[in-house]
């Protein structure tokens, strides 16, 4: 039933256009999204520096699935379903915390940080604790970024890892610390939140803070770039080549995008004057003008890696019309607030931009509810929406007909 319905909607989809309405607003489709996308693909969870010591944990919900991501006693990152093997209660209930062991607050079953059940009081002789460990979740750490996958057999992250590591590793994300986090809820479908991030067509009219520094055009060979930014691009590219820092777009297909782009002339960081947000630069950099590595990965993550700070954005759908967006600002691990950086200065551009994007996505969602809504055409500068739309349609197509059906159709 559902598969036929989705297949019908996919058949209506016009490439190069926004999606048919139900993909954005329908509860049943939303549940399919959670099952087909969020429970099968790799989901960005956090940065390792958010849980620096053994026992530090962070919780999140992937669809209806509560998850705890923690650092175990060996210093490694692990993730588990945050659901007690007794009668299913949530175990870790705070968004972040620290636990010597994971103790279910309901009946005090005790789990070691490796997920094994080590104490279950009042259970009878012969109760098999080994069979009641926490259900593990796959984890991969790429340049400090923690990705989790709820699928039994997760897809390969090898191409992504190989593609983005040369861009990100020089910024040494695992030698940073959290300066600030912000979580907002947008009254909009998660795909509208992602789509809004994938184009800067809307920037000129809506993002006065961001555009102090951000170059609007996302492709170095865009003719608009040629006219306005060729000199800037060339000078930046020469400098980065000299430092051995890659900048050309990575081959990420529809899965991911990674590129280093310059800021506007004389701008170094996402601040209201373009000057650095943190005077202590990341890694071993001595060159402050590194533009930013912009890295996006479906379905829920985009990032900026600058000379002086790192931004992670994590999107988690809450319902068909509600989406959580969590932003993390990272600075050098030894940077001191009030000395090397000022928190307001560090965060004001993206706090404002996130809020502007929230309003845009919410209005987009409201407008799509109109009976007059018809999928509309993407502008050439919205080419990344094509990538996203094709990727999403592929996922849903696999679900309705299996990959074979899709390959046969192509």
């Amino acid at each position, binding site marked *: 039933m559902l598969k036929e319905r989705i297949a019908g909607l996919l058949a209506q989809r016009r490439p190069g256009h926004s999606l048919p309405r139900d993909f954005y607003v329908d509860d049943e489709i939303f549940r399919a999204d959670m099952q087909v996308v969020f429970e099968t693909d790799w989901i960005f969870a956090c940065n390792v520096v958010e849980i620096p010591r053994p026992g530090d944990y962070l919780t999140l919900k992937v669809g209806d699935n509560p998850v705890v991501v923690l650092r175990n006693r060996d210093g490694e990152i692990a993730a588990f379903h945050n659901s007690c093997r007794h009668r299913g209660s949530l175990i870790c209930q705070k968004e972040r915390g620290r636990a010597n062991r994971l103790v279910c607050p309901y009946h005090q079953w005790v789990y070691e940080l490796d997920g094994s059940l080590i104490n279950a009081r009042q259970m009878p002789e012969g109760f098999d604790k080994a069979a009641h460990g926490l259900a593990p979740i796959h984890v991969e750490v790429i340049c400090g970024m923690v990705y989790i996958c709820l699928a039994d057999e997760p897809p390969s992250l090898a191409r992504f890892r190989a593609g983005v590591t040369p861009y990100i590793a020089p910024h040494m994300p695992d030698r940073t610390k959290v300066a600030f986090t912000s979580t907002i809820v947008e009254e909009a479908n998660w795909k509208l939140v992602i789509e809004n991030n994938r184009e800067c067509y809307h920037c*000129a*009219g*809506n*993002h*006065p*803070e961001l*555009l*102090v520094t951000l170059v609007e055009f996302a492709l170095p060979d865009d003719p608009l770039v040629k006219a306005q930014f060729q000199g800037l691009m060339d000078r930046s590219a020469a400098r980065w080549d000299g430092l051995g820092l890659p900048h050309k777009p990575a081959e990420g297909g529809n899965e991911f995008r990674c590129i280093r782009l310059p800021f506007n002339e004389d701008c170094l960081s996402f601040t209201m*004057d*373009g000057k650095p947000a*943190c*005077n*202590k*630069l990341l890694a*071993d*950099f*001595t*060159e*402050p003008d590194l533009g930013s590595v912009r890295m996006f990965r479906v379905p829920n993550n985009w990032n900026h890696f600058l000379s002086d700070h790192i931004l992670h954005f994590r999107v988690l759908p809450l319902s068909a019309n509600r989406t959580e967006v969590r932003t993390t600002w990272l600075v050098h691990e*030894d*940077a*001191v607030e009030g*000395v*090397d950086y000022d928190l307001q200065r560090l965060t004001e551009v993206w706090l404002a931009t996130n809020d502007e994007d929230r309003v845009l996505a919410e209005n987009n969602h409201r407008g799509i509810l109109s009976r007059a809504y018809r999928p509309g055409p993407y502008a050439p500068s919205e080419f990344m929406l094509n990538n996203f739309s094709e990727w999403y349609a592929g996922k849903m197509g696999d679900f309705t007909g299996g990959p074979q059906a899709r390959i046969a159709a192509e």
Partner: protein
Amino acid sequence: MDMQAPSAALLSLSCIAVRDETPTVKTFRLRADGGPVGFTPGQALVVKVPLPGGPAWRSFTISGGTGGDLELTIKAQAPGGATRWLHENLREGSGIEARPPRGAFTLGLRDNDRLAFVSGGSGATPMMAMLRQLADTDPEADLAWFHAARDPAEVLFARELAELQARMPNLAVAISVSRPGPGWFGYRGRVSRGRLASAIPDLGRRQVFCCGPQGFMQEVRLIHAAEGGARAQFHTESFGGVAPAAAPIAEAAPEGPGFGLTVNGRAIGIRADETLLQASLRQGVVIPCGCGEGMCGTCMVQLVSGRVDSRPNGGLTPEEAAEGYVLACSTRAASDVEIRLA
């Protein structure tokens, strides 16, 4: 004792002793014929070196001196040059001329409790002069010493640093050599941010005195800045050769007279040939905009004062126009203008 007053006149100096510091570095002790010469540690002497082809003027930091004598510690460079001439010709009993001590690279600049003396090669000489002064005046001083040399035999002042450490409990010494050999226990390699930051973890909080080759000083300056250090907390001693950075080229003269433009209280300028939007964007003030043709109204701003030439292309309602709104993309200034973002 009476010291000679600084003057532009040449000092006549006699060499009263020469000692070897390393295979390529000698220290020359000089005494002025006219009586003791005062100097501030870190200052330099400009020496008239009588090369066969004519005199060459060279600056050398005064590495020390007591009782009115001055010491120069000089590394012999390429044959035919001034330093090589001094090594070969200046010996006990010979005379030489110099301008009186000069320079502002001294502890007079000190305004931070934490100091770092970072030197490359013979750049250690002014550091040592200042260090001796600190040992006498402020032995508790919190000072990190970092010295980069090519190989262990060329490390300057190693023994004296150890002696001073006995008197200066907060003197931390780190040495890096780029050509280490067996028995070398210090840092290895050229100066880098990672190496310097591991030797001096709080470098960015320290006031840095840096002396060495130009490339070395440039690198250390970038490292200090990257560690969060303020530019005003970084001092170098540089001897000649480098012209000051050229002044920025003035912007092309505007077409016709310009006016003042104030956007949300921020005063910027506007040329007669550009719109409010162009002037703002050019100067880093972002006004939200859309079509750029006066049609969408996104760039609507409130005109607070001034005369303008406003040509909205349907993007402004008559009511908005009557209330003093204009579209930044299609409005030019006809006088000084103040606007506020709507």
